[in-house]
């Protein structure tokens, strides 16, 4: 089942989102790569890399703003593992809902990316 990696500036925000998603897709593995040490606000490429090393399947990254997005892209460029990890720059909450539900239904990374693109095409 496709894992989700949430990169928010606020660890609490990502934790809250995780709770919301658990209602919709209880079995989907969700990794919180948000915030900085000590509960500080920010994003850190090494937290995203840490999430990469704990995923159990392919994964989708969702981010909030600015540096979350840049750090996600940076982490992906540095990634040398075998998993198919994809990043889509879509609204964090709505995107995560769609991705979680679809992952729960057993869809692949590729299918979820297509669904996100279709839903959030500008």
């Amino acid at each position, binding site marked *: 089942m496709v894992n989700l990696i949430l990169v928010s500036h606020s660890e609490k925000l990502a934790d809250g989102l995780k709770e919301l998603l658990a209602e919709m897709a209880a079995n989907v593995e969700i990794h919180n790569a948000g915030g*900085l040490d000590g509960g500080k*606000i*920010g*994003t*850190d*490429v*090494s937290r995203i890399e840490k999430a990469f090393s704990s995923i159990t399947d392919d994964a989708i990254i969702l981010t909030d*703003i*600015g*540096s979350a997005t*840049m*750090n996600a*892209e*940076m982490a992906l460029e540095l990634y040398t593992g075998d998993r198919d990890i994809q990043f889509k720059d879509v609204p964090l909450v709505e995107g995560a809902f769609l991705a979680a539900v679809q992952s729960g239904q057993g869809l692949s990374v590729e299918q979820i990316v297509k669904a996100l693109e279709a839903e959030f095409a500008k």
Partner: protein
Amino acid sequence: MKLTTQGLKTALLNTADQIEKQKDKLTDLDREIGDGDHGINMSRGFTAVKKELEDKDSFADLGELSKLVGMTLIKTVGGASGPLFGTVFVKFATKWNGKSSVEGDELYEGFKEAADGVAARGKSKAGQKTMLDVWEPFTNALKSDEPLETVIEKALADTKELKAEKGRASYFGDASKGLQDPGALSSSILLRQITEVLNG
């Protein structure tokens, strides 16, 4: 005008000192149109860079030095400046790999690659009140006879009047006009130090 491995190292050590001196100013500017951490972030990053440079006596070439600096900044700066300033040096490394001195076209191409890399990473272009508004004129000036110090000063002053269209500052809209972009200021600090070693 020539950039050597030792020259870039000197410029980076001087930049670290300057960033430290202007840390509060950078943070204050960021407080006005951002999240108020730019000085702290840049200081943390360049303190780490300084330590790396002091720990390692010599570098084989500009590529090795740039790569280490880029990766250090990515890992330590945080915020959007980590990936952005990190990209500058990672891009230098791709162009200057195996070279211990660059001038003329080779010098220009490194800066061009870096400025393009920042634009791609931030999905931005010049004119949006970002660090690019300093990096782009500086890079273009390497192809001209204009004194680089003058180009940096002018770019920094011009950036002030722009309306922010990228990053958190963009949420301030017209209110961002007249305020200095912190990333443009920290870029000017670095580029001034590089200019000093280029002028020899």
